[in-house]
């Protein structure tokens, strides 16, 4: 496919096997909660390694989440209300971040 402002694109077509794999993938439920959580690994290892302080780790993480929430809230406000997919994507990310903060609070309750 020829393009004027970008390099030309090559168009691929799905083989029957590919189509089958795609359908199987669509039918599968998608991964939900993150079990492999980088922050949590740091938090749990902190006292064993002596390389970090749990309170400092939680504070850094909370500040980071709040900055992200601020950015996404602004983005939501700037999004065309008619653009439903964009709004839903941002709202989903915000709800996840709210859950991350709630969970951080739980960690705080257990570890402080």
């Amino acid at each position: 496919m020829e393009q004027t402002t970008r390099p030309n694109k090559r168009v691929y077509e799905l083989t029957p096997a590919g189509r089958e794999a795609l359908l199987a993938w669509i039918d599968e439920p998608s991964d939900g909660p993150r079990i492999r959580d980088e922050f949590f690994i740091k938090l749990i290892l902190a006292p064993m390694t002596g390389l970090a302080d749990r309170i400092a780790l939680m504070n850094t993480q909370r500040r980071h989440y709040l900055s992200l929430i601020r950015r996404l809230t602004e983005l939501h406000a700037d999004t065309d209300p008619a653009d439903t997919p964009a709004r839903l994507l941002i709202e989903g990310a915000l709800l996840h971040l709210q859950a991350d903060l709630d969970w951080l609070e739980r960690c705080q309750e257990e570890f402080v």
Partner: protein
Amino acid sequence: MSRAASKGLPWPPERSADSPVLLKTSGLVKVYRADGVAVEAVRGVDLELAVGEFVAIMGPSGSGKSTLLHVLGGLEPATSGQLWLRGQRVDGLSTSGWALLRRRHIGFVFQFFNLLSSMTVADNVELPALLAGATPRQARKRREELLSELGLTDKAGAAPARLSGGEQQRVALARALANEPSLLLADEPTGNLDSSNTRDVLRLLRRTHDRGQTILLVTHDARVASMADRVINLFDGMVADDAKIVPIPRGLNGVRDILELRG
């Protein structure tokens, strides 16, 4: 406190790196006693709030955040520690001393609005100005400005109970701002609102702050807290963290790119 003393600070307040301190606490403690049992809700809080700042207090339920806000606004006396407002030591004020101070300098917004149900929206908003000594004409003028700014002009004659939760909270905000308070205190102002009303109240708080209003609010809602300049995390009656929110520069995150992948 005297009328002359209330004219000490400029209005609207200037916001600069070295803004004057509006509120300061040192070793603030609040202990409740019920049936001989002492519960330490606030356990030695030191904080400073500069003129023009917007600060959010977060923390788990029972962390003492609402109690702290109530003590800062004189709704409940501190058990010990010091509290200054506009350079004046206020922790020893009497109930009536606090009432006078609040009338002039502190606006309050609550989770459940706390409007006077027997009065119209207009009267609810005019009352604080009248109590503070404004003429009926001044009070009406200020009320008209506030209601128009908050999009409530057509509700002036209504009873609060006829309004939606979001509208009631906007009326409560108008009432809190009626006397151009030095400090706006808000306790879970969106705690009883759905997400679209939350967005409205947030936008109004933001606009009020942009005009120089100093705001201290307690919230569970991270979207509300993230609008503040600074977030204090209260845990077990003590300050666990106190930090400015560092905005993420626009264009440095992938959300826009993801959205633009569509189509």
